[in-house]
């Protein structure tokens, strides 16, 4: 297979351009822009970056290989190409890339980590610039003039001296025969006319008239419908199944066991659901060391007394704490969280004797392809994964467990199958945001200095947990991912310890929007507020003092404070809290304005958010992602949590797992720092600061420190 990755660029152009009528450019821009070296080696750095295709009728099609899950990659990524290629945005059509090595390379990890713009920036700019260069070359040769007399603008090449003009469409044939240039010049950011502007999202029209296609909407001839009854008890299994009544349900076709449970297949969604309802299954609950949330938190507490694996160790914390005038300590706890994407897990699988096609809302299409290949025994080129729109992702869809199930059922039925998870399935069989416990200690001096900081993170490991299906024994193994945001604490303190204490249970855990940054920032930013309180310093001032060497933190913190009117008069009974955290290369500060009523209910009225994500590509998308992250984080701060009872998840649907709704929605003002640094992620960094901003505001309002999420009104009643 290694050889398949590499395609000689000339052959590639030739093949494609004779196959179609237009100009199709496939790029193999190696990371270091060194074609020569890469051509002679076999080719791990060679990942094809993008496809641009221009039709003779001036239709420009830009392909996106990241999954569109609401974060706007169908807009922000094509904008980058359009900028360098000088396209007319109204003529751009966006399509989803097929899942193959040309687009994804061999080691693609999928869409996540707020990485899409961050990692595509350079290669997409190059891709656009190369395309433009070839079109310029084509026009120059058409007119027999010098290339530098030609100019590209809004889909046309103009010959400046004569005013001759050809559209990109008219140049496709010629351009297809031009060799890909080895190097191109990128635009000066001062000349950007697309990047940094608010263009309409390309997927919006489809999403307001019901035509956007999610996997759930795929319909194949002869398709049947399947649901799986899974064991609700983690670590449990099936003891006995009585499916007689279920089989008698009108429209039920078959019932059989698959790896994850009992599959019920019917002629319609409703028939399969009714069949499933009539199953009688006895479960073996298995043995479970930690069958409820209480025992899990107790386990965390015990673990926190053990030695941890060092993630960061500056100076000598032990000694500093001994010398400190005051030692402050606090423990914070956060619960498991479900993703609850609006579209529950589902997929459509069409397994045939010699190939298999899948429609899936997946963040990891390459992984899906590999798994399907393994399950079916088909070579990769006989496995086609169609990435549909995702009805939310938030990290859940990095896992392809639902694809496995669909394949198993389709193979058994020898028919196309639509596999649907109910909301209950989705909520009870998630890969949850890990619950965690955070033990913090700091040493303060009378003169206001902060001399020591220590943070122990006790949490299940995603990396060394179920993800790779090998349990790591509970010993001190460092999972740096679990320390994200804890290890990088930006405050300038001479003695810092950060350690990790693994605490795996059998609750499946996974990536949840902003991952461990969500828990670690909560602990950091609440604690820093507690230190300011102890020292009797304003929380913004205190942070600024400790961030003197962190200009990007400082800037967002100052901006959010200024825009929120920090320290100024605000509405009666309203109180403010602040927080500041960097994740995924992006710096965010937030000021939350809250009130707490007599029942102890927290009302968040307004959130001011300042963000520095480098060069802003699509400001409206950045704002939308900040708003979305704040809402997602507020749900986990004010409303829902996942608890474990009797070895199973207690919550089953939105009446028990409450999420933020319109009537709880604060005003949100997002302010974007104008920066020319390379762009960084925006899908997640807006989330970590919101919980501490709110709990710090709750402290300002009530004098009560919230050290356990979500906030419970009964703890705040006056």
């Amino acid at each position: 297979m290694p050889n398949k990755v590499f395609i000689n660029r000339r052959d590639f152009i030739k093949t494609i351009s004779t196959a179609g009528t237009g100009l199709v450019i496939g790029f193999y821009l190696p990371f270091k822009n060194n074609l020569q070296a890469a051509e002679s080696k076999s080719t791990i750095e060679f990942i094809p970056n993008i496809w641009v295709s221009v039709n003779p009728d001036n239709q420009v099609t830009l392909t996106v290989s990241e999954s569109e899950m609401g974060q706007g990659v169908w807009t922000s990524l094509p904008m980058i190409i359009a900028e360098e290629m000088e396209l007319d945005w109204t003529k751009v059509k966006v399509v989803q890339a097929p899942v193959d090595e040309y687009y994804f390379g061999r080691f693609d990890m999928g869409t996540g980590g707020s990485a899409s713009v961050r990692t595509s920036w350079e290669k997409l700019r190059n891709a656009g610039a190369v395309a433009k260069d070839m079109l310029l070359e084509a026009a120059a040769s058409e007119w027999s003039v010098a290339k530098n007399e030609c100019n590209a603008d809004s889909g046309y090449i103009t010959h400046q001296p004569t005013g001759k003009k050809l559209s990109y469409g008219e140049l496709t044939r010629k351009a297809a025969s031009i060799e890909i240039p080895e190097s191109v010049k990128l635009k000066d950011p001062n000349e950007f006319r697309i990047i940094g502007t608010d263009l309409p999202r390309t997927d919006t029209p489809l999403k307001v008239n019901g035509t956007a296609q999610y996997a759930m909407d795929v319909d194949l001839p002869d398709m049947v419908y399947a649901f799986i009854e899974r064991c609700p008890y983690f670590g449990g299994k099936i003891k006995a199944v009585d499916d007689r009544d279920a089989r008698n349900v009108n429209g039920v076709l078959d019932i059989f066991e698959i790896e994850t449970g009992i599959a019920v297949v019917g002629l319609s969604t409703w028939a399969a659901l009714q069949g499933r309802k009539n199953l009688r299954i006895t479960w073996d609950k298995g043995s479970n060391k930690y069958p409820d949330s209480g025992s899990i938190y107790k386990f965390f507490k015990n673990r926190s007394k053990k030695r941890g694996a060092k993630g960061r160790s500056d100076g000598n914390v032990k000694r500093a704490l001994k010398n400190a005038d005051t030692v402050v300590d606090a423990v914070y706890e956060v619960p498991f969280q479900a993703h609850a994407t609006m579209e529950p897990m589902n997929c459509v699988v069409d397994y045939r004797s010699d190939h298999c096609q899948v429609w899936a809302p997946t963040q990891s299409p390459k992984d899906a392809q590999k798994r399907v290949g393994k399950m079916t025994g088909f070579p990769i080129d006989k496995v086609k994964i169609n990435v549909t729109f995702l009805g939310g992702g938030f990290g859940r869809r990095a896992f392809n467990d639902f694809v496995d199930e669909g394949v198993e059922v389709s193979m058994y039925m020898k028919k196309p199958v639509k596999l649907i998870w109910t909301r209950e399935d989705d909520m009870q069989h998630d890969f949850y945001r890990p619950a965690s416990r955070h033990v913090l200690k700091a040493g303060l001096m009378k003169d206001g200095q902060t001399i020591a900081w220590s943070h122990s993170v006790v949490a299940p490991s995603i990396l060394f947990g179920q993800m790779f299906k090998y349990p790591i024994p509970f010993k001190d193994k460092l999972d740096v991912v679990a320390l994200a945001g804890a290890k990088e604490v930006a405050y300038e303190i001479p003695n810092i310890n950060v350690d990790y204490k693994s605490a795996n249970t059998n609750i499946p855990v996974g990536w949840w929007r902003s991952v461990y940054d969500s828990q670690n920032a909560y602990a950091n930013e609440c604690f820093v507020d507690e230190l300011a309180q102890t020292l009797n310093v304003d929380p913004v001032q205190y942070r600024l003092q400790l961030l003197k060497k962190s200009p990007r933190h400082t800037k967002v913190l100052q901006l959010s404070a200024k825009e929120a009117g920090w320290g100024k008069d605000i509405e009666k009974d309203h109180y403010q809290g602040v927080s500041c955290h960097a994740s995924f290369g992006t710096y965010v500060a937030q000021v939350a304005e809250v009130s707490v009523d007599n029942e102890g209910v927290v009302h968040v009225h307004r959130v001011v958010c300042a963000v520095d994500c480098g060069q802003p590509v699509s400001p409206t998308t950045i704002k939308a992602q900040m708003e979305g992250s704040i809402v997602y984080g507020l749900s986990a701060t004010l409303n829902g949590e996942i608890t474990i009872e009797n070895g199973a998840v207690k919550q089953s649907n939105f009446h028990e797992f409450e999420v933020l709704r319109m009537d709880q929605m604060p005003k949100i003002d997002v302010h974007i720092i104008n920066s020319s640094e390379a762009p960084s992620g925006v899908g997640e960094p807006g989330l970590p600061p919101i919980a501490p901003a709110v709990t710090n505001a709750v402290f300002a309002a009530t004098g009560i420190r919230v050290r356990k999420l979500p906030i419970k009104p009964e703890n705040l009643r006056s």
Partner: protein
Amino acid sequence: MASFLIYINGEKRQVKVDGNTPLLWVLRDNLKLTGTKYGCGRGLCGACTVHIDGEAKRSCITAIENVAGSDITTIEGLSKDGNHPVQKAWVAEDVPQCGYCQSGQIMTAVALLSRNPDPDEDDINSAMKMNICRCGTYNRIRKGIIKAAKEMKNA
């Protein structure tokens, strides 16, 4: 199985299903109108909202036998070219993110505006709190409703 006559988006349609089948699955499986979404199946999220005789209803908890003869409108039937003022306002405000909840949001918003052309903040809250958006597009939805209300008044 029984036969039911329903009026969907102005068309008369006959379907043969069990009488207790939720309208949602009749729309999606039988009539291939997939713009209406499944989100919870229990009337909790609003993703499945359609209009039944002009009112916003949760199709996931509405049995087909109870709506036989009713006038039903889904997102597909709201306008010819996606040009209902609410849809236009949604485009102008760039409301959708993942988009999965948006058919339901739009149908609820349209029903709100048809009975209350000038909703204030509380009216919007109480109508729209039936619809969950996990992507957090609420403020843009709010702006969209206000914009559409204006346009509808001027029309």
